[in-house]
């Protein structure tokens, strides 16, 4: 029985691996910005031939298509349609700058992909400025076949950085939870990770019980999350993405929930209910020790760290209704008193801090609807970014450009991403059911 299960599982994994990468999440751009940069991405020249038989083998991956889709998805670029391209140069030396300028294109991306004798590939690209008639950035990257999508995302990151002045976040992962029903109409929850464009989905955990609140370890190798169990309630686990090995942590009496990995990777901020109500603790993963952060009869939960690890922002209803508070922490615990951050509206919860620490995204209730809002720390200005009814779980991209969150679309749970200025929006739809609880990873090391 057990053996049979293993074989089935093995084949499932093997099949999943040989199939070409597909996207479990389908992404639609729902709102681009008006002044998006016109750019042209020329299909990369394939330098592969089959020397003995003469039959041509297609390129293993359409690098240009992945780059174009990345740039379009950011909302900052308006790639021109393939049919409008004036020529198919693969190197800067072949480019007729006047013709591309006449087309209204500011920047051009050209390149090639070539097979090498050892079975790997060489991908070369150049980003060219049409007005200065010069190369802004160009690289030759060697890549394994299985890594070519990642190479394309890395190219997108370099192009984004050259033109926007901030590193791109295309070569990153997202994690999320899907909810489907099996043939017995039972709920099936899956904790998954995927590339930032929804490709290469990998299931981390499957359960008939709910899974919430995934949090990435800073090195991207582990996830912390909350699992519910019958007659037990919420428990916190950490799991290795590579091996799948999971262990329960913070095994104190009563409910444990809302884990948030510290920027140094050593601690989890989390909520324990052992004191009679929700209190925030800092839990040291290697020592299995804890330090208490909050102490009052109100609900204190949803802790997140400032990027430098110097403070925790959390949700508390110690005032009237849930609001965000900040408290300084160090290795020994709390330093000073919590300070209230939000004053607009009667419901502000579930913070996500931008990587530069300047913005705090949150769930904000306005006219009975729960929307994503962002607070500019310095000015105290609160901007509501979304228009729907049940938006939740905001999570900043590691470059701070977008916030991914969960929402509803046509009765289904979907993910959406919105730029911090609210101008660019995209929707990530899961084909098989509901998708929720997004968490954007850190940059890959």
């Amino acid at each position: 029985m057990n053996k049979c299960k293993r074989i089935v599982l093995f084949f499932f994994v093997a099949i999943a691996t040989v199939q070409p990468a597909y996207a479990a999440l389908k992404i639609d751009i729902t709102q681009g910005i008006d002044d998006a940069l016109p750019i042209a991405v020329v299909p990369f020249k394939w330098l592969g031939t089959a020397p003995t038989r003469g039959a041509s083998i297609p390129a293993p991956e359409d690098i240009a298509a992945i780059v174009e889709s990345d740039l379009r998805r950011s909302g900052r670029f308006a790639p021109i349609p393939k049919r409008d391209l004036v020529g198919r140069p693969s190197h800067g030396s072949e480019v007729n700058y006047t013709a591309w300028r006449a087309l209204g294109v500011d920047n051009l991306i050209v390149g090639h992909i070539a097979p090498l004798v050892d079975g790997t590939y060489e991908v070369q690209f150049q980003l060219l400025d049409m007005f200065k008639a010069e190369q802004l950035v160009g690289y030759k990257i060697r890549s394994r076949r299985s890594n070519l999508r990642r190479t394309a995302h890395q190219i997108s990151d370099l192009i984004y950085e050259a033109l926007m002045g901030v590193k791109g976040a295309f070569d990153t992962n997202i994690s999320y939870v899907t909810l489907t029903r099996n043939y017995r109409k039972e709920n099936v929850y899956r904790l998954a990770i995927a590339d930032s464009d929804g490709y290469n989905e990998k299931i981390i955990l499957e359960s008939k019980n709910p899974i919430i609140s995934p949090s990435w370890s800073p090195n991207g190798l582990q996830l912390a999350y909350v699992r519910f169990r019958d007659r037990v309630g919420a428990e916190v686990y950490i799991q290795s993405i590579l091996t799948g090995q999971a262990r329960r942590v913070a095994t104190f009496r009563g409910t444990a929930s809302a884990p948030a990995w510290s920027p140094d990777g050593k601690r989890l901020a989390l909520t324990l209910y052992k004191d009679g109500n929700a209190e925030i603790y800092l839990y040291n993963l290697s020592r299995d020790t804890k330090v208490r952060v909050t102490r009052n009869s109100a609900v204190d939960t949803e802790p997140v760290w400032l990027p430098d690890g110097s403070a925790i922002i959390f949700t508390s209803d110690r005032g009237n209704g849930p609001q965000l508070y900040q408290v300084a922490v160090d290795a020994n615990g709390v330093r000073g008193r919590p300070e209230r951050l939000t004053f607009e509206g009667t419901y502000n919860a579930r913070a996500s801090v931008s990587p530069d620490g300047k913005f705090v995204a949150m769930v904000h209730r306005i006219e009975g609807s729960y929307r994503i809002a962002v607070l500019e720390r310095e000015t105290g200005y609160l901007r509501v970014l979304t228009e729907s009814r049940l938006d939740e779980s905001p999570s900043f991209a590691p470059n701070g450009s977008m916030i991914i969150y969960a929402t509803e679309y046509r009765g289904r749970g979907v993910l959406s991403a919105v730029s911090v200025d609210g101008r660019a929006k995209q929707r990530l739809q899961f084909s098989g059911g509901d998708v929720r609880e997004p968490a954007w990873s850190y940059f890959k090391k």
Partner: protein
Amino acid sequence: MNKQLGIVLLIGVFGLMAGCSSTSEEKSSDEATTTATDTTSGANMHDGGSMSEMHSGQADALSKRVVYFEFDSSDVTAEARDIISAHAQNLAQNSSLSVVLEGHADERGTREYNVALGERRAKAVQQLLVVQGVKASQIQVISFGEERPAAMGHDESAWSLNRRVEILYSGS
């Protein structure tokens, strides 16, 4: 091609390892799921079970194992008080019985805040049981937040059924 197959096999082995560790763990929770589903449906049916010897008013209250709450509130309503009192009497008289108080919230608001809200509701019920003579050791408080709604739907009629505490007797 050989190399690729090697990678596939390697990943297969990783999957195998991951599968083995999680399979055994999943199995126990699957069994638990079945038990709880039975309990939940029992609670929703308001069946009296073995309460026939009690006089009808109390038996009626005791047969109810779910109490409901107002939006964003953990205040116990008058109707809920009667139900809780019946259970308090039952538990105080039978110290071998124990209950899990399972708090729930509607889908509005954040998931983790709703875990806290569900827990707070279950705590409110616990306090009423304790002041009426139930031992703390007979009661376990947990919360499922908004994760296990009793009614699907995105309107008040569904939400009002989801803001609840379920009183689950052990072994029932």
